[in-house]
């Protein structure tokens, strides 16, 4: 017994040290690309190739001013903001109606609709971008932000409806019925009782749909042709198709389009993680 105790505690200690070492390696591997993005965006353009170094030898905001100088990237950011927030507002509103209907009522096609929504969620954009570009052209919505908004509903609506169903299921039925006995209509119960009680879930869904639309590249690439309706991912995509790759401005654009989202993630991570693990969210 006296022998066993120290060896057990030594083994425990070794386990701890090894765990921390493995985690430290993982953390370095995760952080290095993010660090590289930040460092490259702050290097002098000529130093990026000529003086490869871990730490910028001279710090500069040149890349940012170069990227923003002609105003095109700001237009792209503005377009992305318009598209992503409109998609989010539309999705949250009509998806919460649908999710509420499917959670609270029993009717004939409920199961079919539930399956349809999941199928739609899992139908990849790579299968839809060709027909959708034809449909949008027929609707005269090609090459417009309205068209992009409509197309982004293909992934945001199923995702939002699927996730909101989970959150609404957690709202006790009794609270709603109490409210209805007190004179609320069904719709009033949804607006006044169910939605406020699901606020964290709605916030998570709003963040997911916003980032989904913010990050989208393939549909934007196929549907838009003119510079005035480019979104942020598209603007950066066209930077790398030029002959000389402008690494500095490219990474400056990467920083601008990702840092706000990563901060948002840190603030909201608790309920985002819950949504991600329950609903399966690609991010």
């Amino acid at each position, binding site marked *: 017994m006296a022998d066993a105790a120290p060896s057990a505690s030594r083994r425990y200690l070794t386990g701890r040290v090894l765990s921390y070492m493995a985690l430290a390696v993982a953390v370095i591997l995760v952080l*290095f*690309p993010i660090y590289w993005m930040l460092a490259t965006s702050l290097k002098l353009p000529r130093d990026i190739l000529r003086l490869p170094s871990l730490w910028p030898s001279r710090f500069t905001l040149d890349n940012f001013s170069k990227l923003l100088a002609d105003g095109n990237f700001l237009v792209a950011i503005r377009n992305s903001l318009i598209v992503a927030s409109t998609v989010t507002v539309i999705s949250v509103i009509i998806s919460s109606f*649908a999710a*509420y209907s499917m959670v609270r009522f029993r009717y004939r096609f409920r199961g079919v609709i539930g399956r349809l929504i*999941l199928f739609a969620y899992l139908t990849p954009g790579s299968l*839809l971008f060709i027909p959708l570009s034809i449909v949008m052209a027929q609707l005269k919505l090609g090459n417009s932000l309205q068209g992009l908004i409509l197309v982004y509903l293909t992934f945001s*609506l199923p995702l939002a409806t699927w996730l909101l169903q989970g959150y609404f299921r957690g709202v006790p039925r009794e609270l709603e019925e109490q409210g209805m006995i007190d004179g609320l209509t069904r719709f009033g119960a949804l607006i006044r009782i169910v939605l406020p009680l699901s606020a964290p879930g709605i916030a998570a869904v709003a963040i997911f749909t916003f980032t989904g639309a913010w990050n989208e*590249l393939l549909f934007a690439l196929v549907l838009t042709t003119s510079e005035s309706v480019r979104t942020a991912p598209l603007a950066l995509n066209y930077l790398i198709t030029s002959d000389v790759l402008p690494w500095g401005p490219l990474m400056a654009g990467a920083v601008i*389009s990702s840092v706000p989202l990563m901060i948002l993630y840190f603030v909201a991570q608790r309920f985002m993680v819950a949504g991600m693990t329950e609903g399966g969210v690609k991010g």
Partner: protein
Amino acid sequence: MTDVVSSTDSKVQQRRGLPGSVRTKLFAYALVAPVVLLILGLVAYPFLFAVWVSFTDMVIGSAGNFIGFRNFQYLAGTATFWSAIWNTVTIVLISDALKLCIGLGLALLVHQHLPGRGLFRSVLMLPWAMPAFVAFLTWRVLYQPIGGGINLILNLTGLYSGVIDWLGTRQTAMASVIMASVWRGFPFWFVSILAALQSVPRELHEAAIVDGANSWQRFWNVTIPGILPVIIVTTLLSSIWTANGFEHVWLLTAGGPSDATMVFPVLAYFGMQTQRIGEAAAVSVYMLPVLAILVIFATSLMMRREE
């Protein structure tokens, strides 16, 4: 408990009578209608339309005629198509296997009651919070032969002093794409498995200890069965997403060098650019049988978990 619910239910029913129940049903359909109509119009219809287009010789500006399987036969005769099949399968199998191993390993590490586990979890999740296009553009910069971070690290640590063009060389391009895709994709596995680990009841572990199981036996007989359903759903979802991912290949290599990393979505996009829409649609439709199996399987598992 059920009594309470059903008694309030019937009270509400009584108060509003029979016309009320019809109204309720109409109300339920009205609430769900916008989403259903939009999904039918924006997903179901385009999906069927894509299948139709793949059997036509449609080009931009003309409706096209039905030509049977000719697009499919034509594609099967091109080397690029076979590269796309091979590469898509390779990327899915290798990168998802790596994501599983890394995600499971890290989840097991973080699941121990280590001080600082919350911080580790937050940091390990960061690649998922980064937009995919930003992540892959950053990796593209990292892989640059001159001035790129990977070669710099190899040089500084003395592991290799030469210059490797990671994305421009046939032998390294695929591995580079897979590595970037694993970096961006493992957090989804990590967090899903971590949540599953936390839901395995403690009592099961304690009972196994009482029965004299060692930690390895507990891992195989308690932990793994406890998290298996989550691993299966995650595998299906991740395979669907990886197989249909566009950004990782498009932004890193655009399918090159000489088709070494060509995958289905990029091939379909190139087909679209050549304006031969029928052929491009046939590329996506070729993926359909395998995709349908994965999607149907995933859907039934997710619906069952929800019930």
